[in-house]
């Protein structure tokens, strides 16, 4: 099962001929993803590393039956690329590009209201279903097939969570990086709903950061709807107010978006919150043990790897 990405995924890359686009297309292919081609209007009709290049997304869909796209198009043109993909009927649009202006994302958001397409990102590492398929830039080898669903706003912290759940032996169903921008596609809450409904997912890790109110809303949802154990980490408890911490979305404005408010909301919802990023895997073990009464990890004696 898992979510979003699996054996039925037929992937194209928008921006396949760029350096990053090609590099990661090849890594996705190696991981086992069914890559069916790419798009670049200037190189239509050619091939790159054996993948056919199409002039537009519609053509790619018609010729290959692609249902998923991974976007590496530069920021000034990325919003158009997302809309083009939705227009062509692509079901899952994973946008890796960072630096897309907010106004462009407002246009995208407005457009997607009339569409069935699911957007993930922008400015995200993508999605990996362990040992099955990967769409994005996450290092494949850190994943291990297992029972934990991971959703994260930060790229490298997604890798931390994956790595730690691999070390504990719990493994992952799917890891989803939703991105660090103020306006993005799937939110924490959307992905948590999917994990909650996925029979293979037995526990959920939520990685958030300062800024916005995604995590608070997810906490509300978890409180009343999620029976699976959830652990979390919120980055940025030491960040000063009013300073943008790398991600466009990671900023505390006024009294809103602080780590404290997010941690409190999650704890109130029964979520086990890791106080440092090194403790994410361990907190997931504890949350699972608390809920099921037995230890699931490699080192059950003290439950600490």
């Amino acid at each position: 099962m898992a979510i979003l990405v699996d054996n039925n995924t037929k992937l194209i890359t928008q921006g396949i001929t760029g350096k990053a686009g090609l590099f990661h297309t090849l890594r996705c292919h190696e991981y086992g993803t069914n890559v069916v081609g790419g798009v670049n209007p200037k190189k239509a009709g050619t091939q790159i590393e054996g993948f056919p290049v199409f002039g537009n997304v519609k053509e790619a869909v018609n010729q290959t039956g692609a249902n998923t796209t991974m976007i590496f198009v530069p920021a000034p043109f990325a919003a158009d690329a997302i809309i083009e993909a939705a227009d062509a009927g692509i079901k899952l649009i994973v946008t890796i590009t960072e630096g897309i202006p907010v106004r462009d994302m407002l246009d995208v958001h407005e457009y997607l209201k009339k569409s069935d397409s699911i957007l993930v990102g922008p400015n995200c590492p993508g999605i990996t279903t362990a040992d099955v398929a990967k769409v994005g830039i996450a290092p494949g080898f850190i994943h291990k097939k297992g029972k934990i669903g991971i959703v994260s706003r930060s790229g490298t912290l997604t890798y931390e969570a994956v790595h730690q759940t691999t070390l504990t032996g719990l493994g992952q169903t799917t890891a989803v990086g939703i991105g660090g921008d103020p306006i993005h596609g799937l939110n924490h809450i959307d992905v948590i709903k999917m994990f909650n409904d996925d029979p293979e997912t037995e526990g959920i890790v939520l990685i958030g950061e300062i800024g916005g109110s995604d995590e608070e809303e997810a906490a509300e949802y978890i409180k009343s709807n999620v029976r699976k154990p959830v652990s979390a980490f919120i980055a940025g408890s030491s960040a000063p107010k009013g300073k943008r911490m790398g991600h466009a979305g990671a900023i505390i404005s006024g009294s809103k978006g602080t780590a404290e408010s997010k941690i409190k909301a999650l704890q109130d919802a029964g979520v086990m919150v890791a106080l440092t990023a090194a403790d994410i895997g361990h907190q997931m073990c504890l949350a699972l043990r608390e809920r099921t009464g037995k230890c699931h990890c490699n080192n059950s004696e003290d439950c600490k790897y």
Partner: protein
Amino acid sequence: MKLLEYQSKALLLEAGLPVPDSIHVINADEVPDALNKVTFTEGVVKAQAFTGGRGKAGGIKRYSTPEEAKKYASEIIGMQLVTHQTGSEGVKVHSALIEKAGNAINEFYLAVLLDRAKVSPLIMISPEGGVDIEEVAEKTPDRILRLYPQYGKPLRDELKTQAADFLGLKNELKNQLGDILQKLYDVYLQRDATMIEINPLALTNENKLQLLDCKFDIDDNAVYRQKNSGGDPNAEKTEAEIEASTYGMSYISLDGNIGCMVNGAGLAMATMDSIKHNGGEPANFLDVGGSATEEAVTKAFEIISGDSNVACILVNIFGGIMKCDTIANGIIAAVKSSGLKMPLVVRLEGTNVDIGKKIINESGLNIISADNLDDAARKAVSLTKK
């Protein structure tokens, strides 16, 4: 990118919004000439600096003669302005805006900003002008009206009516407000603003609405297409922050003594959090980016060690696409070429991590290897406490 008041007002004027007559001066010697160009004789000299609360801090002075205006301008320009919004070191005053003095009989609050949760621009209005809006939101939240425009369409008349009723404005003033709301919303979108705050929006004794003060933030991701906005994207950055950005790195200087070099914004924040959690203080936020080159890593060491407070450096890299042995070699080369003397704690994780650690341990340099993020933070903190 934040704009200064005079830059903001130029954009508002261009959009046809009512702002008071004014003229901008870079230094006090320009004041006599500048005053010859304007029609008003009494006014205010306003410090141009990235902070609110200027009036109470002595950054806004009322004058009635040209000599007075020049005297205030010379006092204000270049001063370190300390307000309740700045730290004790204050912010430097860039220049001054000389503006016609208004006679406000009432002051309102007006802002257009992004509501992230609703994924929509939001117009915020309050009859409580001239005060801190956060205080109003906390103490009397019913004194704030939130209006959501329909994206991609002009404002509905119904929204304009709601706004006018909320502020108690009728007839001609209601029309003026409606016009201001529409134009402000348009300039918000056209200029890729993330926030425009008008505080106060004044009602003058001539029965006119006027935008007296303005904060204007432009989306950093859209600066490339707003080059004619007058703003300087580096205005608020330190030299080190500017230098880092030319290497594709994001650097923010902080007050502590443990320098940090990390890949990824989330992991960089988490590293700072861990340092604090273990009783230390981070000296900076630094995200070297996803595919840091040896050149960038060398530059990062230079920037971090350029901060004289730094007593120890913590490197935390999750090598996903890059291999740990490559990163380890890069760190060693960078340490050698920059002649770094202070202790270095390195935490590597990812592909070929064992080879990477071995390279570090056998380098003969003053580098301490750590097993995980928390271990690294603990080791760095204990080094600075010796």
